[in-house]
C-alpha cells in the first residue's frame, strides 16, 4: 500500500496495519524533518509531488521489494505540503518471517523512494532563504 497525504503521518496507527501472525519481524523507517541540512539551520520544508506518477512509481517499488525479498507486508506513506521540524515526511514498514529480509527490504524501499519518486523538497532556512534540494547528484550526507 502506498499513500500520499497532506495531513500528519501517525506511524503508530499505521504500524497496526502490519498485523500478520506469520510475521516474526517488523522493520519500520521514519524520515523526519531535521533541524539542519548540509550545515544550515532549517526552519521548515515544503514537499510537492506529481501525484499520479508518484503513486505509480511507488507501487512499482513496493512490487519490486516483494519480488526481491520474501516479505509479508510492505507499506509506504509520504507526506506533502508544509512540514515543521520533527514531523514525519515519509514512513516505510515491512513485515516478514525473519529479520534480515525485513531490514533489507525496508532499506531498499526507502532508497528507491528517495531516488525515484517525483517528489520535490524546498528547504527554508532560519535566515529566510530557501532552496529546492535534490538527491540525484548528491551524496548520502545530504539525503538522509
Amino acid at each position, binding site marked *: 500500500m502506498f499513500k500520499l497525504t497532506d495531513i500528519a503521518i501517525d506511524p503508530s496507527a499505521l504500524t497496526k496495519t502490519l498485523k500478520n501472525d506469520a510475521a516474526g519481524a517488523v522493520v519500520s523507517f521514519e*524520515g523526519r524533518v531535521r533541524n539542519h541540512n548540509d550545515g544550515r539551520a532549517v526552519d521548515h520544508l515544503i514537499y*510537492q509531488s506529481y501525484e499520479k506518477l508518484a503513486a505509480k512509481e511507488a507501487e512499482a517499488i513496493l512490487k519490486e521489494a516483494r519480488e526481491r525479498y520474501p516479505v509479508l507486508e510492505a507499506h509506504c506513506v509520504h507526506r506533502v505540503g508544509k512540514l515543521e521540524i520533527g514531523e514525519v515526511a515519509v514512513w516505510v514498514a515491512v513485515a516478514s518471517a525473519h529479520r534480515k529480509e525485513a531490514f533489507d527490504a525496508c532499506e531498499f524501499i526507502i532508497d528507491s*523512494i*528517495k531516488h525515484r*519518486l517525483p*517528489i*520535490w523538497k524546498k528547504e527554508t532556512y532560519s535566515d529566510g532563504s530557501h532552496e*529546492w534540494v535534490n*538527491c540525484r547528484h548528491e551524496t548520502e550526507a545530504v*539525503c538522509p
Partner: protein
Amino acid sequence: MINLPQPNQMKQNHKLTVIYYAILRDQRGIDSETIETEVETPLALFGKLKEEHGFSLEPEQMRVAVNDEIADWQVKLADNDVIVFLPPVAGG
C-alpha cells in the same frame, strides 16, 4: 520519386498542456499552461520554454513524462498531450 511531405506529416500546431513542479514552477510563476505550438518533441518543447522563461535546468538533469508515463525526450507529441518535466527529485 520525390518524397514530398504529405499534409499530415507537415508541421502543424498541437495543443499541449505543460504542468510545472518545484523549481520550474517557481521560475515559470504558474502551475500549468496550455500552449499552441508546432514543436514535435519534449526536447524541443523544453528548449523553447527555457528560452522564453530562463529555466535554470538542462534536459540532461531531468526526465520527462507524457500523459503520466515516463517518456523519451524524442517522442513525437500529439494534440492534447500533457507534459511534465521532472527536476531532480528529493523524496523522503
